[in-house]
């Protein structure tokens, strides 16, 4: 998978209120006429793909909530702008990640699949790795030449990776045959 999204959640909340509600010796109804500053959870989005690394610190949740009116804080123009920018970033990173994943998934049983099999064969002893690497690549080639579906080829690769390679890696190294006692 060529695209990955790292999300870093940072919770910051600070509220500023106006000063004391004491006027002289009497308490008055508190008046909070100062703008409340609330910095809600922030998300740092990092999207790495073949198109490069995109890093954007984006405050997502609170500005969006404020813009929608879900909080008691009146949304400012900055909140609305941040909400729109963060939503656009989320959509763009999803599209980039999805496109890369879809592209790689399409390639998986082909060139990517052969790469996977070659890498998996590296787990085998040296003399066996070369042989099985070529053997499995040949079988995958024949599958493709026969017109096998994408799923069938993917199933072949998964079977080799999950079943064949571990058993061979252990069996070839242990050596000897088990007696039929």
């Amino acid at each position, binding site marked *: 998978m060529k695209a990955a999204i790292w999300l870093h959640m940072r919770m910051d909340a600070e509220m500023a209120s106006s000063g004391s509600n004491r006027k002289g010796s009497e308490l008055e109804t508190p008046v909070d006429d100062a703008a409340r500053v609330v910095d809600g959870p922030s998300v740092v989005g990092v999207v790495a793909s073949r198109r490069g690394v995109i890093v954007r610190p984006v405050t997502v949740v609170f500005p969006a909530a404020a813009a929608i009116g879900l909080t008691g804080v009146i949304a400012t123009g900055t909140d609305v702008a941040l909400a729109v920018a963060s939503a656009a970033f989320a959509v763009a990173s999803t599209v980039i990640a999805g496109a890369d994943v879809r592209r790689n998934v399409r390639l998986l049983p082909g060139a990517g699949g052969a790469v996977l099999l070659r890498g998996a064969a590296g787990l085998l002893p040296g003399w066996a790795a070369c*042989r*099985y690497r*070529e053997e499995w*690549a*040949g*079988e995958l080639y024949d599958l493709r030449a026969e017109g096998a579906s994408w799923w069938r080829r993917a199933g072949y690769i998964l079977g080799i990776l*999950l079943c064949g390679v571990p058993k061979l890696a252990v*069996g070839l190294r242990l050596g000897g*045959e*088990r007696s039929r006692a």
Partner: protein
Amino acid sequence: MTMGPRLTAQTVAVVRALLTEPAKARWGRDIAAETGLKSGSLHPILARLERAGWVESYWEDPAEHEDAGRPRRRYYRFTSDGAETARLALAEATQSAAHAPALGRLSPQSGCA
């Protein structure tokens, strides 16, 4: 006691498939298609049979695959003694399986003193 690979049900299926034509060489996907096994299960079995000396493998003749423009295949067939050894092992395994139900009668029955 006979030394040889452990004869699991899947191994028996592979041996039987090869015994239909012991002298004929087959490649992995042929054997997989005949036995119904996936390649991930088949290759470890073939490796065990090779290590036991029952089966030998070799690469396809370059003249056969280069013209076709495809990668070479790995072929498997019984060795000169492998087919006979495999038949004997299968016969022993079949006899053992036939005697196995008798062991069930040795289990204690409820109500026995």
